[in-house]
């Protein structure tokens, strides 16, 4: 009975993480469309939200990787999964507050690793899986997106460079409706699956699903898709500003190239089950499309802050995940620990939201243009 209560708390926490993932990553998906005025902000966010939902149903390869290749599945307990999720949520909230587009995926994987390490030591962490299926693809993806977007924009300028800017700009703004949609689809595919993988891991740990007959239940797919879509709709306006205009001012052709390159990399990675960071990938594409035009067009200081947030994400989320696991174990192996930690994190989140609200909205539609 107690373990079922913990699983319910873990599933609710996982869906809350999925919501914050959508909330946090909205900017990555819609910032380029908004900053080039291809779509008005509210429409762009609603459109991305709908396609996030659809994208979650496309593939389950990433969910299988998260459930089987990051930590030792037979050592996992629901409390461990809970600690990992809190590590990820807390880090997502902190980076959201400061307007930094760090990776929700790395926060989740970092949180899981930290909690597993605190519970069972280094044996619980599948170092080969983490390195081969998470870390290396995580390093390759932004560089690949950078190169793809850079080469694409150079080719685009070569093809349409002598045409009148009016029709060309209008054409690429129309194209961004499709490329932005693909990016939202890719985001839903890769990111919602991470939550599906974590929930499935908790269900396996609870004995609700046999490890030999691993599968992601339909209700998990639907609920994860809904949570990320709702989170995306709620939006993250602060990060929209960072992604859309602070890195570099982009034209619609650059926006199109960045979105197309980002979508191609994320969809190809999802197809083979790499749980990469959509934030890193899209940031790489945005920077690549700017750097190919003119190196000085990129605000490298802002790009540098983003890199610092990337470097901090895994260890910071792992530390919070480990501490959370330790706190929950103070209360034993029952449901009291997760309940206490959930209340504390809700109070902390409310305090952050209130403080952010006091300072006023970080960005408006007029500012994003």
């Amino acid at each position, binding site marked *: 009975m107690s373990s079922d209560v913990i699983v319910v708390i873990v599933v609710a926490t996982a869906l809350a993480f999925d919501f914050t993932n959508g909330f946090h990553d909205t900017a990555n998906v819609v910032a380029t469309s908004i900053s080039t005025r291809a779509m008005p902000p509210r429409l762009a966010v609603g459109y991305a939200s709908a396609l996030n939902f659809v994208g979650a149903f*496309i*593939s389950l*390869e990433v969910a299988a990787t998260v459930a089987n290749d990051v930590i030792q599945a037979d050592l996992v307990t629901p409390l461990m999964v809970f600690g990992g999720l809190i590590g990820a949520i807390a880090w997502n909230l902190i980076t959201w507050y400061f307007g930094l587009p760090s990776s929700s995926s790395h926060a989740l994987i970092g949180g899981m690793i930290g909690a597993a390490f605190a519970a069972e030591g280094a044996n619980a962490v599948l*170092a*080969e899986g983490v*390195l*081969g*299926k998470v870390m*290396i*693809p995580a390093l*390759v*993806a932004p560089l*690949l*997106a950078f*190169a*793809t*977007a850079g*080469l*694409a*924009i150079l*080719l*685009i300028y070569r*093809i*349409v460079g002598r*045409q*009148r800017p009016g*029709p*060309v700009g209008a*054409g*690429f703004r129309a*194209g961004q409706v*499709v*490329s932005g949609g*693909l990016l939202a*689809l890719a985001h839903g*595919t890769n990111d919602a699956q991470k939550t599906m993988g974590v929930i499935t891991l908790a269900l396996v740990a609870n004995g609700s699903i046999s490890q030999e007959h691993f599968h992601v239940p339909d209700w998990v797919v639907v609920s994860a898709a809904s949570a990320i879509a709702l989170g995306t709709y709620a939006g993250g306006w602060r990060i929209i500003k960072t992604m859309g205009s602070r890195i570099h001012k982009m034209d619609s*052709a650059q926006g*199109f*190239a960045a979105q*197309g*390159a980002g*979508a*191609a*990399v994320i*969809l*190809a*990675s*999802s*197809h*083979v*089950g*790499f749980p990469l960071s959509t934030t890193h990938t899209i940031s790489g594409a945005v920077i690549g499309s700017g750097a190919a035009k003119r190196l000085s067009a990129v605000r490298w200081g802002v790009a540098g802050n983003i890199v610092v947030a990337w470097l901090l994400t895994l260890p910071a989320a792992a530390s919070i995940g480990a501490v959370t696991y330790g706190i929950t174990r103070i209360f034993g192996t029952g449901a009291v620990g997760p309940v206490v930690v959930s209340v504390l994190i809700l109070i902390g989140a409310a305090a952050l939201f209130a403080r952010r609200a006091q300072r006023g909205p970080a960005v408006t539609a007029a500012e994003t243009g």
Partner: protein
Amino acid sequence: MPPLAEIVDVDNLLEVVWVSLVAGIGATAAYAFAILGAARALDLSRSGRPAEAVLFGAMCAIALTAVGAAVVYGIVIMTNK
């Protein structure tokens, strides 16, 4: 721990690299050709050269079809695995 080459899923990683480059650059270039075709067709028809305008219009249509086909093909592959 085994050497890095054994840990990294090289085949899948290479697949991601070439698919991303081909799809990301190919589709955006094809769309740029569609815009070029549309812009030239508009200019030529305004300047009274309908035959050439039709040719550029056809280029635009072919390029748009190629982009659409690439998108649909990619999604079909994703959903069929």
